[in-house]
């Protein structure tokens, strides 16, 4: 059985003891639900553990550094020290998408392999995973997602995959396929006037709806923290 490592979110790690090293964690939810901040915690935990980490972001790398630094995470120094590698889809997957030739591995995946080997990356974040798995026709999604998650497993890195969900059928199909193939799945949600909640819908292959919703808040200077009262000794 693989060793466990911390996810980097205290209430999750207290409840589950972390995740298996080398597994894939899906974090899904609506826009603004906190997925990218959870990704920062995941990367920060890698830095705390002395692991090299890599972020592939759909946004701008410098924005991620600014956000993380605001939560007290030393991303700027880690990037300067080459412990943290930040890549942007806009330049990394230029003129490529997963549908270019769905029969063959995308060149970007080989490029990613090379970066992982060069920097001895142990933890990897795709914020978002969409460019790798959003292929047409939709009937190929199952095979594509299966192959992608198994390829990540073969890379030997622990991966966090974020996915913004919407109400469309293709979005649900994609989310469900990723949830099927990733050993761990976390759903983040919020509603106007209500608290944010994290729900672990799958944990190392165990049945879904495993945990009760875990209320959390995003605190300036700290990041994601549990809103639940501290447990009595």
């Amino acid at each position: 059985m693989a060793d466990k490592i911390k996810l980097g979110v205290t209430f999750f790690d207290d409840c589950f003891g972390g995740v298996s090293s080398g597994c894939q964690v899906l974090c899904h939810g609506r826009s603004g639900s906190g997925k990218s901040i959870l990704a920062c915690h995941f990367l920060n935990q890698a830095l705390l553990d002395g692991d090299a980490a890599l972020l592939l972001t759909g946004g701008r790398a410098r924005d991620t550094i600014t956000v993380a630094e605001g939560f007290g995470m030393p991303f700027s120094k880690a990037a300067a020290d080459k412990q943290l590698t930040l890549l942007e889809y806009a330049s990394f997957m230029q003129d490529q998408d997963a549908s270019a030739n769905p029969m063959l591995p995308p060149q970007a995946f080989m490029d990613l392999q090379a970066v992982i080997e060069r920097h001895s990356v142990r933890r990897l974040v795709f914020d978002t995973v969409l460019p790798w798995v959003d292929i047409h026709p939709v009937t190929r999604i199952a095979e594509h997602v299966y192959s992608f998650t198994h390829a990540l497993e073969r890379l030997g890195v622990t991966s966090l995959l974020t996915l913004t969900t919407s109400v469309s059928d293709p979005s649900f199909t994609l989310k469900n396929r990723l949830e099927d193939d990733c050993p761990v799945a976390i759903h983040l949600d919020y509603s106007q006037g209500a608290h944010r909640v994290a729900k672990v819908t799958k944990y190392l292959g165990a049945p879904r709806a495993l945990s009760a919703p875990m209320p959390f808040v995003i605190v300036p200077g700290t990041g994601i923290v549990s809103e639940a009262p501290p447990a009595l000794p």
Partner: protein
Amino acid sequence: MGNVLIVDDESAISAYLAKLISGLGHHVATASSASEMLAKLERGDCHLIIADILLPDAPVPTAWIQELCRRAKGKPVVLMTGAPSPELIACATKCGVHAFLSKPFELAFIKDILKTVFGG
């Protein structure tokens, strides 16, 4: 360096793997059907077989895996498919298949497979 037989009815995949593997210095032969593959296998000069599970003239996948491994006579077999069922994986394991690669992403690991088979 070794002789590698690639079997896939998708010419794009055969061409991709042939280019990659020959670029590493190995000799490559290709087949696009099960019958063509078995004929080439009979020549006995193949060191590694990389085969798709779903071929137009192949029997049902579990029977095909068993037949392929039997005809390979101990030579390493690497299977390719989309999303394999647990039944197929169990069958491949039982038959001693060297590796199971899901298309498309895991094809990127073919170099690692060649290293384990041929060394270097």
